[in-house]
């Protein structure tokens, strides 16, 4: 997988190293800025609200007293 990619990079090996580094940086950048925020939306461990409405969707009105658990 990475072997053919390396062979396809043009230039001498120092140049290829630079190109590979740039590619890596681009992948990390795309992940940080776009992929991970979307993934994080769907993971549960960041919830901190009552009523479980933390999520990627807009929250419904929270405190419906009638639906709450009696103490």
């Amino acid at each position: 997988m990475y072997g053919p990619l390396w062979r396809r990079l043009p230039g001498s090996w120092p140049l290829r190293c630079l190109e590979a580094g740039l590619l890596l940086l681009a992948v990390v950048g795309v992940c940080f800025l776009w992929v991970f925020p979307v993934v994080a939306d769907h993971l549960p461990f960041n919830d901190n609200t009552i009523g479980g409405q933390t999520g990627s969707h807009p929250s419904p009105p929270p405190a419906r007293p009638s639906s709450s658990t009696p103490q």
Partner: protein
Amino acid sequence: MSLVRRATGVLGELMITAGVLILLFVGWQLWWTDVSANAAQAGTVRVLEHDFDAPLVAGRPVTPITAEPRAHLTEVPLGRAFAIVRVPRWGKDYARPMLEGTDHDVLTKGVGHYPGTAMPGAVGNFAVAGHRTTYGRPFHDIGTLRTGDVIIVETRSSYLVYSVQRHGIVTPDHVEVVAPVPQHVGQQPTQKWMTLTACHPEFSASHRYVVFAKMVRAIPRSEGLPASYLHVSAKGA
């Protein structure tokens, strides 16, 4: 090279890639979200401060980032910043923006106000949520709040001073903590409550750490915030 050997090689590379990506995600979540959210939230606070001061300084109508300059805020569109939260216990300079809404996107930008609950300074329960870990973790130190600690909610018109009364740890289905009279569903509110919720334990979503505070004073913005409020007394610490 045989086909099997080749397939194994590719599979191995894929698995290593997946492992590296997962580590990268952990790094992003634990480090990068704090870096970027802290910067963004500090920026929002600066804009709000400037915006709150604008009518006083220039004597002209305000720029439209927050709601109308009324004695009490009524309704704010989802996702809009409308107040600044200051908690002296968490540092003299601790200041976070308060936005309308509690969905994931809003809570990455600051402290979120549960829509439908009271607005700051109003009778009822002004309920807010914040991250305890990641995304700038505005409520990271929620567990250090003690009875009598002061929470200051700064709006365009006033400094609303809330005093911590008690805390609780509940499962996320206990919506009565954000009821108009916290933990007393159905009661008619006569006092001005504030409820803060954050996850508990840290890095877990199993429970919520909840702090209840009561408004003790409203100071018009024009009078300024007494410096004494920004000092944390040792009592109760």
